[in-house]
């Protein structure tokens, strides 16, 4: 599992538009990434299994296939970061995509720099070599080992969810605004879509909380943002 250090990171581009796919390939290669392509939504998941990419670029509006479904299927078998390409930013499609497991999204038309920044942010996940263990309630986090447990039961988190939890756990008393989390976890410099935070907090809660309706690990601070529950 996992790519060797120094190897070129692979990016799977799921897009039916050949020109766009080719153009994405040019941009990715220029950034030292290795692109792989699949145009047919129906073959996306099998291509994913073959390629074993480090990141997926997924066009949400694929004709003949449901981008959301592909997103869900990939998420079921992998924790790999998924970035959606979407034509519409302010619709429910984005929220549905995030709920289906996507980590971030880019709105067409985007600049190459924007796309690369989003890809880099998703690939540059917390990496520490010195051991560090954090705890919120019964949930313990082994930061170097990228492992989260509730008691003895391991919890599988995506790198983004892991980072979100670590960010909260490292400063247990601090209340994080959504903007703050967008900057720290997603790497956004400027104001971005706070729905990203809302949806991912929900996803995180569905994994780490006993009762997501009454969270004890990730607490909502009304009107401000979120904070970690008591250790």
């Amino acid at each position: 599992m996992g790519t060797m250090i120094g190897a070129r990171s692979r990016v799977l581009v799921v897009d039916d538009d050949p020109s766009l796919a080719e153009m994405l390939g040019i941009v990715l290669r220029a950034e030292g990434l290795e692109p792989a392509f699949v145009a047919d939504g129906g073959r996306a998941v099998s291509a994913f299994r073959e390629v074993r990419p480090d990141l997926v670029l997924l066009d949400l509006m694929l004709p003949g296939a449901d981008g959301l479904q592909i997103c869900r299927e990939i998420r079921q078998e992998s924790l790999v970061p998924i970035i959606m390409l979407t034509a519409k930013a302010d619709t429910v499609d984005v929220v549905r995509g995030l709920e289906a497991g996507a980590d971030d999204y880019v709105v067409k038309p985007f600049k190459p720099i924007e796309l690369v920044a989003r890809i880099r942010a998703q690939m540059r996940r917390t990496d520490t070599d010195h051991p560090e263990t954090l705890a919120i309630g019964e949930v313990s986090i082994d930061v170097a080992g990228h492992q989260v447990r509730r008691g003895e039961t391991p919890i599988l988190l995506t790198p983004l969810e892991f980072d979100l939890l670590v960010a909260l756990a490292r400063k247990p008393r601090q209340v994080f605004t959504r903007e703050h989390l967008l900057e720290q976890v997603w790497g956004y410099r400027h104001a971005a879509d706070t729905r990203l935070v809302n949806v991912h907090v929900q996803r995180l809660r569905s994994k780490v909380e006993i009762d997501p309706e009454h969270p004890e690990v990730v607490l909502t601070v009304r009107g401000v943002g979120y904070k970690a529950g008591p250790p």
Partner: protein
Amino acid sequence: MTTSRPSGWRTRLDGVVRELRLRARIAGRAVWLQYRRSLQLRVAVITMAVAGAVVIVISLILFEQIRTQQLGAKKDAAISQAQVGVDYARNQVVAVPSGDPRSIRLTMQRTVDELRTRGGSAGQFAIVMINRDTPTALTQPSFAGLTPALPDSLVTEVGEGTQTYQYAVMPTDGGPAVPSLVVGAPVPSQSGSYELYYVFPLDQEQRSLEDIRSTVVASGLALVVLVAGIGALVTRLVVSPVRLAAQTAEQLASGQLERRLPIRGDDDLARLAGSFNRMAASLQRQITQLEDLSRLQQRFTSDVSHELRTPLTTVRMAADILHSARVDFAPDVARSAELLQTELGRFEGLLTDLLEISRYDAGAASLVAEPNELGPLIQRVLTAADPLAHQRGATLRLRLPDDPVIAEIDPRRVERILRNLTLNAIHHGDGGGIEVTLRGNRSAAAITVRDHGPGMNSEEASRVFDRFWRADPARSRHGGGTGLGLSISREDARLHGGWLQAWGRPGEGAQFRLTLPLVQGVELEGSPLPLEPTAETSDPYDVVAGPTGARP
């Protein structure tokens, strides 16, 4: 403690009284409200009142007539019987040799005994004869206590020589006192003045009158209740379909377009139901049509969006790569790459604005409003616009009130409005100062953006929100705006239930005013700031926007 107790009790008592009074008032208001709201109750109450009044008047007249008739018959019979008795007594007295009081008294006694045994059409009676000169009864009265009970006024009148009658409450032989008709007449003789009194008890008449009265009252009451009941029933027949119609109309209004009224029979109400249903069907048809159109439009917008954006993304990325490599190109090619880059930016902006405004046209725009503080929002917009303002030589000044102004808004849309207004002011302000003012009152917030450019006349001010409208075609195209910014801003303001208005005067610059309600769904009644700049609003501004002058 002890001294304060009585006043404490009093206070408590006062409290209880106040409480009771309040409850009574509330209950009274509830009843009044029910009365105002329920047509059925009102009709029942009104019919009851009217029927009650009519029944009372009729029963009173009826009862009075029956009484007069009954008593009149009795009176006539009694007077004629008394007359017969009096005539008989007078004849007896005349037949007695004069001057012998003893024989006169005997004769009188006999006469009275004789009269007492006689019956008559007037029913039972008591009789007594008295001598005015000897205060005691001359003859044995029918029973003891009769003589002293005779009414004085009657006795006086008879003593003056008139035959008369009077109603009075008289004792009976061994029974309770009853209302009676007393008839008195003088019986003259040589040896003093005699008076004959007949007493006819009216207890039978009274009993029958009481019976009649209770019958009249009972039947009157029954009639009133019946009439009120009929009123309520009839109203109910009319009101329940009306209530049903009202309920159905509410459901229709709340979006249940398939609701209809049941049609029963062929009467006016059935016709009402028929018309109502036809109206509902027509409404439903039109709304469905509109919804279909809107859906179609939205679908189209969404498709266009996707279909246009995908190639645009490719072009954009290609242009970016060309642009970043332009130093290696020949000058003309390099310039072409630059032009391609900037015009693509315009094209993107235009596409975004077109899609946005088509979303408004399709009625697909929805508001997600949350309470937001306006001050920081404005500061964000001004900070972002500051570099451009700097480039154009304009200074941005902001004046915020001391208290934060919080309104239920969609921050993305309000930011867009303010960005458009600010950029508009920078483009048209000719490098002068631009003042942004925020003020709130209890129900609304207003933000004005003032520039000191060439300004515009009122005709232009009324057209600035038109799509693709440009005040000065030759000049403004440099501005780089899409020509849709202010139109979208106005739609954004409308979506909030707010106003976006423009003021301008040639040579004096322009001012745009955005007014937003603090709470969504509340109708705006006015704006906290005037549309036309006044001396007050042109006071020196204490806050200058931008990274250097931002208020802590």
